[in-house]
């Protein structure tokens, strides 16, 4: 009798004790990047020139089509103290070069910058970001580099070398460019180019803010706004600046991040610009070569409390698997990162709290961001690289830090929970790009941080299934940018853009959980629809656009 009582007592205790949740497994391993000796040299000065705290981008691309992702890193430059016009950032000095690292079969990297012809990005250019796209549909990815100064377009010659075609192409821009991206806004099969610009800033207009003995970088409101630029690809290797004709230049902002998606399903790619400390911009593509800025009335301009976000990086993909692309915007602390849920019919609702992102982000400064299914469970997770703008922020607010570890937020049925990234190394994070570096079916990340080498986050993997799709357009642009791809109910918009100053692996990765087959539906920018059924999981596949 006594034994029964004891057993029943034990059972009842078991029943009421909460099931202990397993502590999250580290998702990534911070790995030494063998062969990569790049240091992001931003050259901070006591004068707090604003450019110093903003670089730099990273791109994951397979420049030689050997099936392995290579890494392109944008460097900044030497900032003289004082910085006088005409500016000279000493970019001829190899320590300030942008760098291209080719991945070898054993996972190490070789610096091929000189061999590729990508050295010396111009003494008058302070480096910022990078965009990747095959603008001439020759099957090799081209590289566009943004600068404070003149931007650069490098055509990939297909033989391991690049040629600077900026002048011929007419895409030099000027001013202070930040994030850029290739996309096909008019669905003519040629990738166009969008360039965000930050501020009307020059060394002469530079100011120092803060207090005596505690100077700090000035907020963007101290300088004039700048317009973004839209370049239309004529299809003959040249571009036309259609910023005015398209309506894009009608509304200047403080653009730092850019992402593309077709949020209203009308078949035309729309643009979201993450603006710093003003309303965010959502440029609706009217389908006739013009755009209308609709963020305010669509509900994507302000946080749920009406605050202006200090928008830095942005992703424009579907996080809750309802088939509609949502927005997540990184920003400065004391306000959560912005989450704009796409409610359909062209409207968004700010759901930074409902999504769980709010609770994970209120005291952090976010920059590069990826929305990828890192654990292959069929739900896209968030990885954000973090670090404050001000190197002396701690003296202003002891709860804030200049250097921060990254944030991994795991998606549990549309709600984000804190994950364990695998490294809590605090850095001054800026750029971030995501892709499957080692082709093991699990998405990895490369991040940049001021004054340091890049960080390689290699995914530890697991047992879930996955599929990775490379699109090959025919009537559509060859990269297939702008296609809507649905796999087992999950949707991705084909793009390499998003994040901050960076460019992702263009392959479309889908986690499949326990499913070992999948169905794939593609709506190409040309309007062609394509469907594949019973596709085996756990492989990389190329899908070529059908004739109709």
């Amino acid at each position, binding site marked *: 009798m006594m034994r029964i009582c004891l057993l029943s007592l034990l059972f009842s205790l078991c029943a009421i004790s909460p099931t202990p949740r397993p502590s999250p497994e580290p998702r990534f391993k911070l790995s030494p990047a063998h062969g990569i000796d790049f240091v992001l040299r931003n050259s901070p000065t*006591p*004068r707090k020139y604003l450019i110093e705290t903003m670089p730099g981008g990273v791109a994951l691309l397979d420049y030689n089509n050997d099936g392995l992702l290579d890494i392109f890193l944008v460097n900044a430059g030497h900032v003289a103290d*004082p910085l*006088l016009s005409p500016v000279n950032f000493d970019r001829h000095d190899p320590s300030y070069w942008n760098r291209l690292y080719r991945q070898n079969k054993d996972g190490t990297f070789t610096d091929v910058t000189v061999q590729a012809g990508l050295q010396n990005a111009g003494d008058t250019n302070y480096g910022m970001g990078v965009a990747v796209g095959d603008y001439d549909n020759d099957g090799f990815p081209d590289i566009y580099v943004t600068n404070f100064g003149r931007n650069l377009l490098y055509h990939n010659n297909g033989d391991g070398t690049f040629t600077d075609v900026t002048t011929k192409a007419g895409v030099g821009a000027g001013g202070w460019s930040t994030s850029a991206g290739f996309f096909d806004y008019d669905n003519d099969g040629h990738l166009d180019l969008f360039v965000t610009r930050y501020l009307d800033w020059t060394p002469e207009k530079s100011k*120092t803010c803060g*207090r*005596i*003995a505690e*100077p700090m970088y000035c*907020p963007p*409101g101290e300088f004039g706004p700048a317009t973004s630029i839209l370049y239309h690809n004529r299809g003959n290797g040249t571009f036309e600046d259609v910023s005015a004709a398209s309506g894009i230049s009608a509304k200047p902002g403080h653009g730092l991040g850019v992402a593309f998606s077709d949020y209203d399903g009308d078949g035309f790619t729309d643009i979201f610009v993450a603006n710093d400390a003003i309303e965010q911009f959502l440029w609706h593509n009217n389908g006739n070569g013009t755009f209308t800025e609709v963020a*305010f*009335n669509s*509900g994507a301009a*302000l946080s*749920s*409390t*009406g605050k202006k976000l200090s928008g830095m990086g942005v992703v424009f993909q579907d996080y809750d698997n309802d088939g509609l692309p949502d927005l997540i915007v990184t920003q400065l*602390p*004391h306000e*959560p990162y912005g989450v704009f849920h796409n*409610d359909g*019919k062209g*409207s968004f*609702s*700010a*759901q930074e*709290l*409902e*999504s*769980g992102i*709010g*609770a994970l*982000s*209120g*005291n952090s400064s976010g920059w590069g961001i990826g929305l990828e299914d890192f654990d292959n469970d069929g739900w896209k997770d968030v990885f954000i690289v973090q670090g404050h703008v001000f190197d002396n922020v701690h003296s*202003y*607010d*002891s*709860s804030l830090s200049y250097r921060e570890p990254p944030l991994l937020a795991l998606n549990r049925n549309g*709600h984000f929970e804190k994950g364990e990234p695998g490294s809590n190394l605090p850095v001054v994070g800026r750029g971030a790009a995501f892709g499957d570096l080692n082709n093991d079916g699990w998405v990895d990340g490369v991040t940049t941080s001021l004054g340091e080498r890049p960080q390689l986050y290699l995914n530890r993997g697991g047992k879930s299934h996955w599929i990775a799709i490379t699109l090959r357009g025919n009537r559509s642009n060859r990269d297939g940018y702008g296609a809507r791809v649905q796999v087992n109910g999950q949707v991705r918009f084909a793009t390499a853009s998003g994040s901050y100053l960076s460019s992702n692996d263009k392959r479309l990765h889908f986690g499949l959980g326990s499913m070992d087959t999948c169905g794939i539906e593609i709506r190409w920018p040309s309007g062609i629809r394509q469907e594949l059924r019973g596709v085996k999981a756990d492989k990389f596949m190329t899908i070529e656009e059908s004739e109709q």
Partner: protein
Amino acid sequence: MIIQAVLLVHFLLPAQIAASQSSPEAAKLLQSATDAENRGDLEQTIADLRKAVELTPWSAIVLLKLGDAYMRKQDYGEAIPPLKRAAVLSPGSLPAHRSLGYALLSQGYAMEAIPHLEIARESGALGIAQLQTDQPEEAVINLKNALAQNPDDPDLIYYLAKAAAALSSELNERLLAKFPQSARGHQALGQSYYSAKMFLEAEKEYEKAIALRPDLPGLHLELGEIYAASSRWTQAEEQFRSEAKAQPGSAEVAYRLGDALLQEGKMKEAAEELSRSDSLRPDMPETLYALGRALAISDPNAAERALDRVIAVEKQSPLAAQAHLLLAGAHRRQGKPELAARDMEEYKLIHNATSKPEP
């Protein structure tokens, strides 16, 4: 702001005074420097003055002008050597000591700046230097004097507040040294740290106070507010829950707890707690707004009722604007675009009328 004012005064130093102490060649250079200064060409001004200093290294005024030119360029490090020499050559020169004091202070040499700022009777900068060298009592006196002369200077207000907080902390530390078991002493010290935005230090003091007197009302609430200020919502929730146990009838505590739950994304629990706060003290606009926010997605009709009450109470305040913004979202989701547009218009009108110009 303080430095700019000082420099304006210094640049009124007539070139003739400097010229009277110099050779004809140096006088030419001084005139050229003045012309360049008038054109706004600081580089040329400095180049001319450097040459003039080479010709007349004994001239305190020329050295002072060079130092001040560097300061106008915000090149405080370069300004220090000529200003130091000017102060040695002309120990009674208040402008030389004033500029040197500012240059040293701006480069972080607060202790070295103090004697020069004392000679120059620059009470504002002197107070800042004293604050930075752990002399809060003296800093408060000098900053108050400076503020009496410039009552709207935001820097002075900031530093006086910081000095007062530092002084308060020092006094509380003295109190605690004598009575280490005083929960109130730790609480007071925590409050001082909190007002100086020294959250980690404040947190430690509250933890000590709670360890000594866990039953003392307000301690958990205040510690929760510290966590909330640095967006550590889980810890804030824990403290507000403890306070709610101690003060179950407090509408404010229920609101704080509800708001922490809201920030954590626990919308259902937040709505329950905020409703409880509303029943304890109806028509608190912050509670109603938070309740509307908690219900905005799950129950738009209930959210609308709460937000309508915010607008009825607040009418034209920033919170009313925020309520219109939330209502617009609710109306969009309900497929009522006309109502959404009306609310966005209301939001814009109130927001524009109530928002302050950005600093």
